[in-house]
């Protein structure tokens, strides 16, 4: 019976996915050393590892939303992977807590080249309301190199998607 109900609901709901936004080139923090042929191979088939380096979990809400049907990030060829060894992009949130600093560096080191780091949220971009303290290293770039910074508290899914696309679309 459940299958019948599920199919009925799927057909009634229809397709709610929306077109992807253009890359937000303004969020780049540095010129990317990207070669055209790497991009050709990658296309937009991209794997991301999310690392919460100490966030309030607000940013995570919007990352989850990206997986929802309206944004349908997997439909764009982008997926979240379980291991940093399998990914092209690290999506890092939060001020980096000193208790997670070592784990973040190890994650960065475990990610194969070429790799990009997207710092998400005001805390990731500049330390945010938590700043630097005995327990917080502040912004992500205080600990690992960052390619794209996506501001907002939290950045909405469209802005986040623009940032991710900016990371992998090079300077073109």
């Amino acid at each position, binding site marked *: 019976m459940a299958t019948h109900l599920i199919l009925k609901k799927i057909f009634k*709901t229809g397709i709610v996915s929306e077109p992807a936004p253009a890359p937000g080139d303004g969020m780049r923090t540095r010129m990317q050393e990207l070669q055209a042929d790497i991009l050709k191979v990658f296309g937009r088939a991209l794997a991301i590892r999310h690392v*919460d380096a*100490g966030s309030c*979990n*607000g940013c995570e809400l919007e990352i989850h939303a990206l997986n929802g*049907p309206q944004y349908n990030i997997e439909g764009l060829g982008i997926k*979240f992977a379980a291991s940093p060894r399998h990914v092209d992009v690290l999506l890092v949130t939060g001020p980096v807590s000193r208790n997670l600093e*070592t784990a973040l560096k190890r994650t960065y080191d475990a990610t194969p080249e070429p790799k990009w780091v997207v710092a998400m949220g005001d805390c990731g971009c500049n330390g945010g309301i938590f700043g630097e303290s005995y*327990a917080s290293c502040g912004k992500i770039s205080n600990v690992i190199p960052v390619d794209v910074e996506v501001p907002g508290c939290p950045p909405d899914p469209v802005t986040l998607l623009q940032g991710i696309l900016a990371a992998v679309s090079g300077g073109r």
Partner: protein
Amino acid sequence: MKIADQNWNLGPLGRHIWRGRIGAAELSAFARSVKDEGGQLIALWGSDDRHLAPLSLEGRGAGGEGGGFSIHAAFITAAGLAWVSAELSVETPAYPDLAVIFPQACRMQRAAYDLLGIRAEGAVDDRKWLRHGAWSAESFPLRKDFSSEVVRELEACRSQLPPLTSIPGGDAYPFIRVEGDGPHEIPVGPIHAGVIEPGHFRFSIIGDRVLKLEQRLGYTHKGTEKRFEGMDLTTGAKLAGRVSGDSHSAYAWAYCMAVETATGCEVPERALWLRALFLEIERIANHLGDLGYLGNDVALSFGFMQFWRLKEDLLRLTQRLFGHRYLFDRIVPGGVAADLTDGSELLALADRLEPEVQELKAIYDEHATLQDRMANTGIVAPSLAARLGLTGMAGRASAQAWDARVQFPQPPYDRLEVNMSTHRRGDVLARAEVRFAEVYESLRLIRELVRGMPAGDLCAEVRLPETVAEGIGWVEGWRGEIVVAVRIGADGRLDRVHPHDPSWQNWPLLEVGILGNIVPDFPLINKSFNLSYSGQDL
């Protein structure tokens, strides 16, 4: 105030909220009398009061601390929330262990030692909790004379990865090991496989069965409580809302309630109704998201997509009406910073969400695999829940019938007659059922709030107190009760703020709920609680 036939010298601090000071030696007796009448401990924290002269504390609500350290505890009793404090000497700051009476005190006591150096005497477990390797065992961040010199310069952060042995203070942590033939350990985290906050789980298993789970948290400790010190009251509301982002409105309201009590601010009625509207929107958004993930975790991605479609619709309307998808910074000291001009869209969405959620519930009810995975999985029996202090939504799924909106309603809940939903099974399915019921109830509340919203101002002026003043706020968030205690200094800035998340009590119950289950069910059980890391790591 009488608790279990004993008279304690507690006076009212707010509606259903009581305040008193007792001697440190009386703490155990007080806790026992709360326990005897069926109450619970909900929060425990410390403060450094050495900078406060005892004489400066004649002001409103202040309890008379000064000169030493204090231990504070908040209990839920038949009469409401009881906040008691006891003074501790500077030389040997210690108080009697409360974990023998309320086991949920254990981690809170360990955190109070890590941050303030006040010790629970006679505690069985005195391992560190929030301190990893970021500061030394001899320094205590929440002491007013905490020197930041002991903190490594940021330059050191930028250097290459230090070998593990060179981490200052050492990060070693003695896990409790299961010994004998056969069991082995699976270490998981701090960085997990999904989009989730960091923490470490140490499983001891035989085959696929879990013999023991031990958590180690504190990875997102970012010095939130220290950060409050010296902040102005308005910025404090923003930080309070970011203690755990998914409970933003609950924290911001609890913080503001505390500040308004301390300053004697009378909040306009319309602002209170809007706060309740925000809180119920937050509850629905979180429950919808988790119901989707519960489907996802039993391989029913249909459920995920459907519930997240509905959640996104709600978030977008929230953005359009109030200017923020998660209502960040919409609750401010004295009132609110956003108004509802036209409630028709909200009513229309509520009318659309309800039948859709019912439709999805019918599918969840019919789905054999889902039922098989969720029923009898991750059970916390009511007796255990009572003994260990399981609280909030998860508590209600294990027959712990507490909901501050029901028993101790703050305005406007005193006018709304909230219906509580409970279950006795205490498994993943029961927690899902409670969420469904709470979604329906919150949709009803949203309609009532929109239709009955009184006219009037949005915000009242908060007048800074001239002396040290204190207050406490208590709000039933979607996860459970959020408590924020605030002390404002004579300079009008925050002197000490302690935000308490219900995850403190509920994390240890996850260790219990997983016992005897198989490892692949852990993500499902974990999601059914969906506890906050940031809220307990602070």
